[in-house]
């Protein structure tokens, strides 16, 4: 933990955050986060959102008519290929 890291402003820390998170570093252990409630809360929220999104996984059902359309297009393409 360096004095320089401790003294980072919130703006400077948050500017580094995408790279920090994206490289897999534990941003929560960053000295600035340890001493800044604002950035600690931000980081916690981002983690919560990412985790919640991963659990969202909505499974949607396409309409049955979609297969009929696909099948029709396939037959049409195959018909064109045979004619060609």
């Amino acid at each position: 933990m360096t004095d320089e890291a401790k003294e980072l402003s919130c703006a400077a820390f948050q500017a580094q955050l995408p790279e920090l998170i994206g490289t897999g570093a534990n941003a929560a252990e960053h000295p600035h986060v340890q001493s800044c409630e604002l950035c600690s809360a931000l980081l916690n929220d981002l983690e919560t959102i990412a985790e919640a999104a991963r659990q969202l996984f909505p499974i949607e059902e396409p309409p049955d008519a979609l297969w009929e359309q696909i099948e029709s297009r396939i037959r049409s393409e195959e018909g064109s290929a045979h004619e060609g």
Partner: protein
Amino acid sequence: MPESRIPHQVPQPGTAALESGAPLQQAASELSGAATPASPVSLPAGDDGVLARAQAGDHHAFAQLYSLHKRRIYSLCLRMVGNIAEAEDLTQEAFLQLHRKIGTFRGDSAFSTWLHRLAVNVVLMQLRKKGLSLISLDEAMEPAQEERPGRSFGAADPALSGAIDRLALQKAIDELPAGYRLIFVLHDIEGYEHNEIAAMLECSIGNSKSQLHKARLKLRETLRMHPQEEGRR
């Protein structure tokens, strides 16, 4: 040192926890004309036969593949574009592409992974046609000034309280600007890594990280404003 939970613990493309449950036989038995199975199914080892028959031009086998994968592909398209009609068109195009290219699948990766990537490419092609320039992504995916997430520092900035409302989060994701939603869905939901996203979108890895971060900030902002979706209806 434990790593941040944000960029990791995501499902691998093609292996997300979307497919589980009914065996292939159930899917096949439920397949009748346009009818399709009611629950998502995985690709069991015995699927190789179905795949081989589909590659040989067996229509019924191809219909079985559609039945097995339609939810995953349709859900992917829907999440990426946020529009039902477009998602249906893209799903159709993805399976047409699959029909044309299925003979080229050599088994270097899992079939579901290969199909997933094919579908992502179909969606990206569509977005390119619509004018979302993925070549100059750094500029093109930047939302207008008024759409940018607010700066989080320097002001009173209350944290999200309690658990995130599922519907509110889903709605917030749907309302993300297209560029943000694209990268958020690819990374946080579909499980692609930044280097894979950068390659697919022809942008820098740094830009992928930056866009993802902005997407999460935007979601946070939206969720703080509307923490409960059910109450809004």
